[in-house]
Structure formats: structure tokens, C-alpha cells
């Protein structure tokens, strides 16, 4: 398929855009990555996602697909040659989907909340995030069945859904000085994180932690209403 048949409208710090990119890489789909300008939002974004006006948006031919998890499932179903992203067993699929929803509705919103508070207020949020990670460590044990990823031998749906947040997880650890992935408490996920970031589909597109940290500082200042610090 010609490269300009697939476009991804995204933003480099966005874990949601990263999900789509990883999925496209797994399927070896050539695509054009369009960095969204924001302030103001581009015509293309407003036209292709009129409901939410958010990235990522996958544009396949002339068809827009929105919402990162919907996009990942679409990529899995539209490109059938190449490794499967969702497991084949319906029970395993339900488990992957359950944890992806948990990450999006419960876990990451808590992480985003970290940026809006400072100092001592961060500790309870980090505790909540830690508890979530412990649950995911347990889920990893069940899903991976002794293999390297939630998806088994290769990266799967839940690997993508969770792995996309690793950059931000590192930022949270740096900002607070507290560990979320810990050799003692979550040894399997520590190993998994290394394998995930080293995977060919992820390497090179995972944003660098230092760059994200700078971006986070600016974002945090905006969220607290203060002028951005240099």
C-alpha cells in the first residue's frame, strides 16, 4: 500500500498516539506521521475528529478512525498479514481489553493528576499508582504464561495499552523520587518494560524521558495557572 494511504495525526508526547504508531510498526505499515500543531488545532484535526477534536487520528485512505484503542483494534483487523495484536482466545481478549480500560479510566488519570499538585500531595497519588502497578504485575503473570509480553512471544494489545505510558511513568518517578516499577515488588514488569522498549516496533519512537520531563514541567505550570518556568 502506498505510504500516503495511511496518515497518523499525533503528537510526540502523547502516549495515545504512541499506541497507534507501535501497532502500525508491528504490522509493518508505512505511514506518514503528522505532528499536530495545536493552538490553534489544525483544520485536518477538526475535520477528521469533530466529536472530540483530539489526537491521535488514523486516516486510512480518506477514512478517519479516532480513539487510540479503537485505532489499535482497527489496525489489527485491517492488516491481517503480520502478527496479531489481540489474542485469538475470546477470554484472553476480554482480559486484555479489561486492563486497557482500567489503564485509561483509572490508572492514567491518576498519573495526569500528579501534574496538577505539588510536594506532599503527590504521595497519595503515587501510592494509588503503585497499587495499580502491583495489580498489573499480577495480571502479567497470568497473561504472559511465562513469556516476555502480555501478548506472549510478541507485543500484544495490553503491552501496547500499558507500554505507551512508560515514558510518563519514568517522568513521574523522576519528579517524585519514588519508584513505580521496582525490582523487589514488580520484578516481572521491570523486565517487561526493558523488553518492550527494546522491541523493534517501539525503539526509536518512544519519547526520551528527559524531553518528556521538560514538557511535563511546562504542562504542570500551565495546569497550576503559573507562568511557565524556563
Amino acid at each position, binding site marked *: 500500500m502506498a505510504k500516503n494511504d495511511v496518515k497518523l495525526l499525533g503528537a510526540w508526547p502523547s502516549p495515545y498516539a504512541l499506541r497507534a504508531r507501535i501497532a502500525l510498526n508491528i504490522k509493518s505499515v508505512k505511514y506518514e506521521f503528522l505532528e499536530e500543531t495545536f493552538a490553534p488545532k489544525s483544520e485536518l484535526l477538526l475535520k477528521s475528529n469533530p*466529536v472530540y477534536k483530539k489526537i491521535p487520528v488514523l486516516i*486510512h485512505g480518506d*477514512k478517519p*478512525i*479516532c*480513539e487510540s484503542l*479503537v*485505532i489499535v*483494534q*482497527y489496525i489489527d*483487523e*485491517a492488516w491481517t498479514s503480520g502478527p496479531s495484536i489481540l489474542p485469538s482466545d*475470546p*477470554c484472553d*481478549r*476480554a482480559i486484555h*481489553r*479489561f486492563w486497557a*480500560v*482500567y489503564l485509561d479510566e483509572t490508572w492514567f488519570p491518576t498519573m495526569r493528576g500528579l501534574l496538577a499538585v505539588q510536594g506532599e500531595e503527590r504521595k497519595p497519588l503515587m501510592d494509588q499508582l503503585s497499587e495499580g502497578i502491583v*495489580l498489573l504485575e499480577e495480571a502479567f503473570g497470568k497473561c504472559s504464561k511465562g513469556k516476555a509480553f502480555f501478548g506472549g512471544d510478541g507485543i500484544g494489545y495490553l503491552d501496547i495499552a500499558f507500554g505507551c505510558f512508560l515514558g510518563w511513568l519514568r517522568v513521574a518517578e523522576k519528579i517524585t523520587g519514588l519508584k513505580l516499577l521496582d525490582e523487589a515488588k514488580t520484578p516481572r514488569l521491570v523486565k517487561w518494560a526493558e523488553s518492550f522498549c527494546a522491541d523493534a516496533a517501539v525503539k526509536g519512537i518512544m519519547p526520551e524521558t528527559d524531553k518528556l520531563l521538560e514538557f511535563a514541567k511546562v504542562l504542570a505550570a500551565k495546569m497550576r495557572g503559573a507562568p511557565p518556568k524556563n
Partner: protein
Amino acid sequence: MADEVVLLDFWPSMFGMRVRIALAEKGIEYEYKEEDLGNKSPLLLQMNPIHKKIPVLIHNGKPVCESLIIVQYIDEVWKDRSPLLPTDPYQRAHARFWADYVDKKVYEVSRKIWTSKGEEKEAGKKEFFEIFKTLEGELGDKPYFGAETFGFVDLSLIPFYSWFYAIETFGEFNMEAECPKIVAWAKRYLQKETVAKTLPDQKKVYEFVGQMRKRFGLE
């Protein structure tokens, strides 16, 4: 070996209704277990330890949680009949997007209306009308969200119909006047036996919501 299917549910739950309709569409026999949400059963706490919420489908002892995940699970396991999602990947993505929109928007805004008063309630109503206008836009002139026949999006939204009378009464507006296309769609969909038999009576839901409002000190 016969399939053992159990549904942990709560009769007025819009999320539970989705699963009941899906099971009815597929003609699946199951055991319905009514949960007392003020006194959750050990089975519920065991089967959904993370959220402790209904609905939970237990298929041969294994739990599946989150209503839209359950519906997709049902569609994938009992794939030989009455498909709930289209086969084309783009149409599937489209269906998932809109079912997710219903999930993100409709429950919260409906709840805002029947749990608040004054300015907050008016703000909730405004948001409610905007959301349903968006849904009417998506429905367009089609008989169903799924086009010629009902599908995933229709299934995700129709349970709210049983709550319309409660929402419009406590919200002090008229659903049919504000969202005529949606009401017409709902009545069309209700001609299906599986839906008509599954959805609880609107007046019963209204009484239930009235009791909840008393508990919240709104009556």
C-alpha cells in the same frame, strides 16, 4: 459439556441491560443473579475484585467484566448466530467509537440531571441535549445506528430508554420534544422482542430513581 453462563446484575442497570439483550439476541440460556449493591455478594467481590461492579458474566467459572467488553466476548464466543458487530474493519471501528462515546457521555450526564438541582441541573440538561444532538446527527436518516439493522451502538444506547421517563420527569423536560429522532429510534428498536422483553418498565425505573433521590436528600 453444556455451557454454564451466569450473569451478576442489578435490574435497573443500563450496563446490565446491554448484556441481557446480547444474551437474548444470541439465544443463550443463563442464570440471572440479582445483586444487592448495598450488600455485595462474595461471588461478585471474587469475580470483579478490581471494581466490584455489575454486570459480570461468568462463563464456565471465568469472569468477564465491563459491559461492552462482555458484549464483544459474547459476540466472539457465540459467533455462529446474530452478529452484534459488523464484519468490515472500518465499520467495526465506527461502531466501537460510537459505543465508547455513549459510554463516556450518556451515563454521567444523565446522572447529573437526576442527582442535582438548580444551576447544576440546568448545566446537566444543556450538556444532555448537546450529547443527544450529536447522537441524532450520527443516526441521521438511518433506521438504526447500525444502518439497516440494529448493531453494537444501538445495543449500547437502548438501555437508557428505560431511564428516559425518570430523566425527563426529574429534569423537567420532554424527551420526545427535545430528541424526537432518538425517541423514534428507540420505539422502532423496542419492536424487537429481545429488547422489549429485556428492558424494565420506565415507571418502575422512575420509582427506583425517586427512592435514590430520597436517599441523596433531593426529595
